């Protein structure tokens, strides 16, 4: 092991047996041979990395990529099939907070129990007790039983114990979602202090900006292998692009499957095939929508768009009863119910739509700049002066927007920053 390194991991491999239906008892093991069938799933396919003393690294990747397994191997909760892990110094893990908390015991007693699980002696705990209590901000409640705590207080206490262990290597799994915003900031500051004091930190997180704020380097783990390594910002950009790509492909495939299903069901379904299965429709149907589509700049039918792309909504109608005039209105809602945009033909053009027997109305968005997320489309056709609606479809389909942009909000406003 190189003297400047705190962690050296060489060619780590780990497989799990995934039982289809596991029997743990003697009877089940003996009689149901079939039940003991399992498949071996290779979670880590040879991972190697080195972490220097005092360095902080982040492990990122989608669910099931093996990053948490890597962390569990580092903590020695599980053991690798092959490969080696060398670590130098006391290891503390913030994987499971509040381990061994007893609800009936007071906060103070639980500090002792919990810290003991991290391998601290009574003397060491005594020395840290004041720091732990101060950090948790629970001075007034520290002698009350833990069962009377709110979940936020509980996590604050647990985090305070874990962070005050003073380990040389700190392993963290997705736990910085503790307490309110102020406390999270405090945890972050504490982590930075710890890092400044020379502690080596390994963080597993889905929150890329947490990793960027703390870590010097980032590893992107994909299918049990390291796919990219280096400065967090650039690794994360590559990661996000790939994630968007694969999600887009998946959504399009799902979409195609749903369409296929609708076609098969054919007449059995009241909803026309262009609608999603969560659509709701009502009206007199004197005039009705015959098709609604979202198209990209080259006219391909899409349900997923990259933020800023050109999008065209096409509303096709048929008018068997020769209704002379109508108005078409559409609305876009974000999936949490916020109306993000609504407009109608009259507002947009200043005139009434004269209907043909069959026709189309197109709405063009040169830059569809919504932030990443899922949006739902509603469409209505109604008489210009008001009255009973002809055709109203809610949740016609979902439009998913992707973006590598990390700015937040509903709409990605164009903006430029400079130092004055």
């Amino acid at each position, binding site marked *: 092991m190189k003297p400047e390194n705190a962690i050296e991991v060489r060619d780590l491999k780990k497989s799990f047996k995934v039982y289809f239906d596991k029997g*743990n*008892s003697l009877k089940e093991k003996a009689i149901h041979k079939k039940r003991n069938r399992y498949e071996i799933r290779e979670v880590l396919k040879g991972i190697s990395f080195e972490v220097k003393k005092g360095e902080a690294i982040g492990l990122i990747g989608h669910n099931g990529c093996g990053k948490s397994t890597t962390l569990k191997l580092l903590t020695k909760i*599980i053991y690798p099939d092959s490969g080696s892990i060398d670590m130098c110094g006391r290891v503390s893990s913030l994987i499971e907070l509040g*381990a061994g908390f007893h609800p009936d015991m007071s906060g103070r007693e639980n500090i*002792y129990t919990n810290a*003991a*699980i991290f*391998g601290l002696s009574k003397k060491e705990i005594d020395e840290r007790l004041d720091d732990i209590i101060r950090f948790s901000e629970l001075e007034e409640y520290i002698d009350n039983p833990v069962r009377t705590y709110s979940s936020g207080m509980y996590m604050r206490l647990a985090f305070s114990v874990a962070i005050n262990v003073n380990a040389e290597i700190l392993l963290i799994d997705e736990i910085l979602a503790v307490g309110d915003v102020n406390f999270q900031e405090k945890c972050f500051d504490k982590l930075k202090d710890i890092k400044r004091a020379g502690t080596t930190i390994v963080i597993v997180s889905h929150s890329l900006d947490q990793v960027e704020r703390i870590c010097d380097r980032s590893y992107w783990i994909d299918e049990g292998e390291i796919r990219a390594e280096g400065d967090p910002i650039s690794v994360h950009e590559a990661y996000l692009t790939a994630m968007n790509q694969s999600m887009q492909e998946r959504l399009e495939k799902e979409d195609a499957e749903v369409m296929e299903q609708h076609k098969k069901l054919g007449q059995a379904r009241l909803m026309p095939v262009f609608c999603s299965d969560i659509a709701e429709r009502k009206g007199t149907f004197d005039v009705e929508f015959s098709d609604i589509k979202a198209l990209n700049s080259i006219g391909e039918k899409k349900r997923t768009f990259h933020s800023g792309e050109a999008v065209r909504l096409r509303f096709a109608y048929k008018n068997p009863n020769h209704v002379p005039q109508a108005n078409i209105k559409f609305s876009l809602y974000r999936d949490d119910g916020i109306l993000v945009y609504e407009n109608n033909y009259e507002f947009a053009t200043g005139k009434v739509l004269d209907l043909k027997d069959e026709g189309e109305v197109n709405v063009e968005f040169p830059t569809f700049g919504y932030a990443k997320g899922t949006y739902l489309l509603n469409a209505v056709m109604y008489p210009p002066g008001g009255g009973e609606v002809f055709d109203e479809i809610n949740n016609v389909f979902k439009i998913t927007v992707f973006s590598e942009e990390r700015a937040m909000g509903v709409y990605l406003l164009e903006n430029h920053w400079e130092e004055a």
Partner: protein
Amino acid sequence: MSSLKEIYNYRQMIFSLVKKELRGRYKGSVLGFLWTFINPLLQLIVYTLVFSVIMRSGIEKYYLFLFVALVPWIFFSSALTSGANCILASQDLVKKIYFPREVLPIANTTSTFVNMLLSFVVVFVVLIVTGFGVNPVACLFLPIIMIIEYFICLGICMLFSALTVYLRDLQSILSIIAMAWQFLTPVMYGQDMVEEALSAHPFLMTVWNYNPTTPIINAYREILYYKQIPDMSNMGTAVILGVVVCLLGWFVFGKLQKGFAEEL
């Protein structure tokens, strides 16, 4: 050696687990901690009723003869039955946190050991109040035999707690094993009765003597009931069997513990 050192570093965890176990055991019950004393006393009454009133054994002061062996036996049998459960009972910890796994059987055995020590307070009270008396010199050997028993129990607890993780049936089988083991150890009868019965079968007698609990129980009885300094060859056997059982448990546990988190 490094693992022993690591366990030593985790001594505070052992201590707090023992404390939690002792405090938590009778939480919410009316008599609370008194159950530690009442339980062996009730068992004593039942056995005495059966063996000195209904099935007369002919042993003088049978209740004392039984009591001095029953208390250490209860220690052993709870190390076997409750101890086997100790990894499963703490599976949340085992799955999520690293600590030397040996901590769990050590804490479990220690808390049952502390319970036995408390029961011995009752034993001494009974011995003195009834005027039976104690031999202070012989009693000097009591701590030694207790420590040997502690290590046997630890070995047994490690062995079965590790096996139970992989084979949950053991939990149900163990209560039967514990009962059979009790009848095959001179708890309710004396070693002399066995020697008499097996005098024609020296091989069976040898097998009998390899039961690790036999020399232990015999030693307790020699010290407290016969008020003698225990037989040294008997003590020697106890030490050897203690070391063997403890090492066996340690070794098996060490082999199996790597898979705990995955198996649970």
